[in-house]
């Protein structure tokens, strides 16, 4: 099938492409011509006018919780992929805290097989230890061979320094990162960030130092072992500062941040809305400011949603009893453009680096290229479209988001990948 994307603005920071008013011809999902299209090319082609819209290499979310296997009532592999496509992503990495955990080749294969025919590419992050119990490292070589792109006990940090050491040493052989949820379990267990708000709300606090201690431990261990560490959902000022210093020294450390951690502070918890309960918790203005600084200076490499679907019953309850986490795939691009682009913190090129290029580099996944003969893997976005979040229209099976009814500027309007196009809410084979 022939498709022509007309009048678009091509942006690919890695390939140094920045060209406006371009027409692209795709034949059967492959880039066949960029610019200078002839009359003949238009014959029998379906045309899409993308005036005012940009095409970037397909966005990639490196921290998504699909609930399959185990809790298909919250999200399945397919509903999660639909949610990703609707949010503007052509690839995701899914975290291993499923039931059973992704700690065997069977589960990795199961996920890959389920997602195989979808527009969205799914790359499993496998457990770093068997059953995420922190006792023995998982069969990493086998997991890697079957398609795991990283190792993590996400939900918790790797329990002991000794096991972390082995995980870093072992995964180093494949060049894959250990992805850490940084939280000292002996300091954990609260419902929100420790501070004035936790005191006046009477909610059990989680101190920021619980994150900092593990970030510090992990950086030291990465330095000692030469292993590769990736800090998931960084949320504190001190952690950002430590990652910055470690990068200067050449430590193999990278970091991601979620949109909610650069958009909201713990003031949002004052409503006791359980959709403001997540782990790591929402922090203070000071932390958010340092995160913004870290995004700007490159300390923070990637933006990832930590998409965490939960059922209504698990969220519509007393704050202390509610589960942690929110869905994020379908608000991520909008929040990023609203908060970071329109507030002049990052350029569109920098945003594409954090949403498309760096996450793939961290996980050793090839970055899609804008070259003739390449498979088209695009995200089409409009940085200026003003829209109101309506969770009921989202593709995720869950609705736990604090951003419902929020006005955003900037939206992913479509994605193309694997010979499929998702545009105007419709999935079509191309």
């Amino acid at each position, binding site marked *: 099938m022939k498709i022509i994307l007309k009048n678009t603005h091509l942006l690919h920071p890695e390939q140094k492409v920045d060209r406006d008013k371009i027409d692209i011809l795709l034949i059967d999902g492959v880039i066949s011509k960029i610019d200078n299209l002839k009359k003949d090319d238009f014959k029998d082609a379906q045309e899409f006018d993308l005036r005012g819209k940009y095409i970037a290499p397909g966005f990639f979310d490196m921290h998504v919780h699909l609930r399959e296997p185990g809790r298909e009532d919250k999200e399945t592999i397919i509903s999660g992929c639909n949610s990703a496509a609707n949010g503007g992503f052509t690839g995701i990495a899914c975290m291993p805290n499923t039931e059973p955990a992704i700690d065997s080749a069977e589960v990795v294969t199961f996920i890959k097989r389920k997602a195989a025919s979808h527009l969205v590419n799914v790359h499993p992050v496998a457990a770093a230890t068997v059953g995420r119990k922190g006792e023995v490292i998982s069969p990493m070589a086998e997991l890697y061979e079957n398609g795991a792109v990283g190792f993590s006990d996400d939900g918790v940090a790797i329990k002991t320094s000794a096991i972390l050491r082995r995980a870093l040493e072992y995964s180093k052989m494949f060049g894959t990162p250990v992805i850490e949820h940084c939280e000292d379990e002996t300091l954990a267990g609260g419902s929100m960030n*420790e501070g*004035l708000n936790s*005191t006046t709300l*009477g*909610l059990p606090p989680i101190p920021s130092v619980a994150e900092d201690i593990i970030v510090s431990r992990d950086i030291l261990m990465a330095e000692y072992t030469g292993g590769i560490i990736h800090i998931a959902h960084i949320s504190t000022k001190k952690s950002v500062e430590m990652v910055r210093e470690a990068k200067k020294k050449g430590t193999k450390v990278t970091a991601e941040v979620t949109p909610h951690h650069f958009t909201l502070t713990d003031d949002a918890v004052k409503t006791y809305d359980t959709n403001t309960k997540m782990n790591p918790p929402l922090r203070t203005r000071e932390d958010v400011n340092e995160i913004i600084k870290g995004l700007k200076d490159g300390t923070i490499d990637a933006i990832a949603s930590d998409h965490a679907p939960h059922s209504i019953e698990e969220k519509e309850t*007393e*704050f202390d009893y509610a589960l942690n986490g929110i869905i994020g795939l379908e608000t991520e691009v909008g929040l990023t453009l609203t908060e970071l682009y329109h507030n002049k913190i990052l350029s569109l090129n920098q945003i594409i680096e954090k949403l498309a290029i760096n996450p793939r580099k961290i996980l050793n996944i090839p970055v899609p290229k804008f070259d003739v003969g390449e498979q088209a893997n695009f995200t089409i976005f409009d940085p200026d479209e003003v829209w109101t979040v309506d969770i009921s229209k989202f593709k995720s099976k869950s609705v736990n988001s604090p951003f419902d009814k929020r006005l955003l500027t900037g939206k992913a309007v479509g994605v193309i990948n694997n010979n499929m196009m998702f545009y105007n809410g419709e999935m079509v084979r191309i």
Partner: protein
Amino acid sequence: MPLSSRHLLGLQGVPKEDINLILDTAKTFREVLERPIKRVPTLQGKTVINLFYESSTRTRISFELAEKRLSADAVNFSVSTSSVSKGETLKDTIRNIEAMKVDMVVVRHPAAGTPLFLTKVCDSNIINAGDGAHEHPTQALLDMYSIKEKLGKLEGVKVCMVGDIAHSRVALSNIFGLKAVGAEVSVCGPSTMIPKNIEELGVKVIYDIDEAIRENDVLNVLRIQLERKAREYFPSIREYAAFFGITEERLEKVGKEDILILHPGPINRGVELSSGVADGLKQIILTQVTNGVAVRMAVLYLLGTMN
């Protein structure tokens, strides 16, 4: 003038006028309680449910008595007799209760924020009878009532909350309420039990109990939770008693034998208060119980006659 809110979820942000209105109203009910017939028909035909997810006989009886003195129909619903054990969610429970045409809900719950949650899922007036480590507004109001009764005023009075401030809803409600009416508030206890940012509430932190006694007009002594996880916050009960317990010797040493001491009860004798000090409080504690009923009558009356 009515109250500015149709619920009493806490004292944070409650205007001074509301607090004074409640305390003044309580005073008139206090007089009712001295009469031979202690009942007024004010809330006749209204149904109040006491929804207790935590056992607290004192608070529940105080509310129940207040409701009955106002001629309301009082219904008790406590966790042991309910369907909570069957896994019914709080939202379902409250919807079921509301279907029974309830006008007001008095709620005690171990999770902070639950009273606010209830305002979103039902239409009744909600009164917080203690939610986690958040607030316990009627306890603080009765403490304030007792201080005013004894000292004649609240403005400028120096009050120190003593004990486990970090886990105390009574402390937090007292801080908000007392600050609103212009009292000076300090807290005293082991540093592990003082929340990190408490000074930002305009509260002075004191670690030396003698200094706390010396500098204040009132000590509001909290009950130390012996049974709870409290044990990780101080080395031993003996050490707590030795360094933070209020004894006759200390009061004498500082020369403040006449300082007003409040305690929400029940007292751990020999821990936060020595037996001698506790004995000296008998009268004020009994008065506080009556004041508690009067204050709760005031709150129920003011909220129940609003709409």
